[in-house]
């Protein structure tokens, strides 16, 4: 069987996807990127291959560390790969919103899968996965508990800063004022959505992807509350870029 692989070396996590000729995912794996991208990428890909031979497999690398690995035949930006993976799932014109570890992207795609425009967030991590992690660490709440906690919030508090440091101070002020942790956590997720909505006017259908969307389904629910149109979430949102890279690998090989 001919197989293809895509590997997405993000600033926080490295993702690999292996597909067959029908574009079905036959293996995947995710791990923290750490500091040695090359060997982490190898390990992630090896795990995703589930014992299959990996010589001569067409591989496309993407993500922040795309230029650092030597075993990929081709490199593509994460913008190209997310657009590819997202469009493959939705098969129509859409706006793709990726909420990643250290950056957010919004990509406008036409009904033949071509990118019309894209925007990436500016330098600050506010509104990204790193921001959520940092706040959770500060509040000493395990990440797995955040989604449930946020759903229990009765009210919402506004976190308006688009600087991570300022946002942290805002949160400290809320804590001092006795705001419930649930409400603060909800506020953090709301602010993630705010930061995305400030990037570009969103229009449906919107496809949400990225690690934040996968681990915290409440983010998609907040989008649904805020917008009337269709919000699509693929089954494995975090793998969208790696899947797109694998599709590119197949396309170049064919």
């Amino acid at each position, binding site marked *: 069987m001919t197989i293809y692989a895509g590997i997405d070396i993000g600033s926080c996590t490295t993702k690999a996807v292996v597909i067959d000729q029908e574009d079905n995912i036959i293996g995947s794996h995710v791990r923290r990127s750490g500091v040695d991208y090359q060997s982490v990428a190898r390990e992630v890909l090896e795990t995703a291959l589930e014992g299959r031979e990996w010589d001569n497999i067409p591989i496309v690398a993407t993500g922040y560390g795309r230029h650092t690995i030597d075993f990929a035949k081709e490199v*593509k*930006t994460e913008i190209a790969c997310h657009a590819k993976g997202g469009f493959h799932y939705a098969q129509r014109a859409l706006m793709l919103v990726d909420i990643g570890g250290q950056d957010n992207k919004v990509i406008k795609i036409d009904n033949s899968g071509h*990118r019309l*425009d894209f925007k*990436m967030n*500016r*330098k600050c991590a506010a509104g990204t996965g790193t921001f959520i992690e940092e706040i959770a660490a500060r509040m000493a709440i395990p990440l797995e508990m955040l989604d449930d906690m946020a759903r229990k919030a009765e009210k919402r508090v506004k976190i308006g800063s688009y600087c991570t440091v300022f946002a942290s101070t805002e949160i400290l002020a809320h804590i001092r004022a006795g705001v419930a942790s649930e409400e603060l956590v909800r506020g953090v997720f709301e602010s993630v959505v705010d930061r995305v909505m400030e990037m570009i006017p969103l229009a449906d259908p919107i496809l949400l992807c990225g690690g934040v969307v996968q681990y915290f389904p409440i983010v998609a629910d907040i989008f649904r509350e805020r917008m009337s149109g269709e919000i699509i979430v693929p089954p494995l949102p975090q793998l969208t870029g790696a899947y797109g890279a694998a599709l590119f690998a197949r396309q170049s090989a064919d």
Partner: protein
Amino acid sequence: MEERKRVEIKATAQVRAVMEQHFRELDEADKTKNRKIAWCSSVGPAELAISMGFLVYFFENHGAMLGSTRTANDYIPLANAAGYSPDICSYLTSDIGAYLKGETPLQRAYGIEHIPKPDVLLYNTNQCREVYDWMSWYARELKVPLYGINTPRTQRQSREDVINSVAAQIEEMVPGLEEVAGRRFDIDEFREVIATSRECSQLWEECLDTAEAQPSPMTFFDDCIHMGPAVVMRGRKEANDYYKILLAELKERVEQGVAAVEGARHRLYWEGMPIWGKLRIMSELFARLNSCILVSTYCNSWVFSDLDPKDPFKSMARAYSSIFIGQDDNWKEDYISEKVKRFNLDGILYHDSKTCPNNTNSRYAMPDRLSEQLGIPYLIIYGDLNDLRCFSEEQTITNVEAFIEQLEESR
């Protein structure tokens, strides 16, 4: 990553020589006091000062040197500590910081110990108020006279009353300059300098226009080096002699089909300041992506077609009041559109320069308006002219690569 081979522009050696001559003359004047020295903002009344025998030192050019030598960040914190915010012009902060530390890139480049001490400071607010703030600091520090022209900005067109006021302000400088120079102003000498400066503009514009050719013989990154004489030596014969050499070479490159970027598939516009400390990296990045940035607002800013020796004060007022940076967005959009069409461009890059709002045009939705009007995409690059703390190389590379992929897809 593969490196691109290219046929270098031979005149680069000459441009370096012209720039060196400029600094050596200033250094000599500084040491021997054989000539008076005027510091002048880049689009200030340089021609007037030259006609009165001054050697002119352009402090923004020094700022750019601090940027391109990547030393700016050693000095910016010193100016910050002296009360000049990290959010303001990083030419200003790096230059004042370098002064406070007693250092200059002229030391390494030419063995020149320090920047030349001015006898007078001149500026024009046609580009920004920062040049006034910057020179005020030196005026206090060095106790030298400061003369300025206040030009209104955000104009739709150069109004006659504005031109008259600016012309009057230039004329009002004369007695003060006479006193510092120790000699009389002579209108005929002024006319001559204006004529020489006008010729420099014409020649430089012709050089820039060779980029209309397919392939373009020169990139924006080349322009940033070759524009030096048009900035610091305009109004002097040496600049014109240099541009004749450069123009001849560029025409030859066009005739022989010598490309600035071999095999370039995308022709792009650069709007905004250069990121001085990253010129090489950016130049290699675009070349690797088969793309050529061949027109820019910035390098076209030293074209002053209105200069006219017949009416030196008023024509200078007109030329210096109608520069791109001083006009409103409608005017700027017309300007960019004309270039995009004439140079047959595929996309526009906007540099959002953190510390220079004056040279940043992406903050009031101009990119969206122009993109809709021209039907070509744009990319905003977030950075700064000098302060590399405001620039993420990784993010920029990803954005640029994605932008070029998008252009490829739409071909």
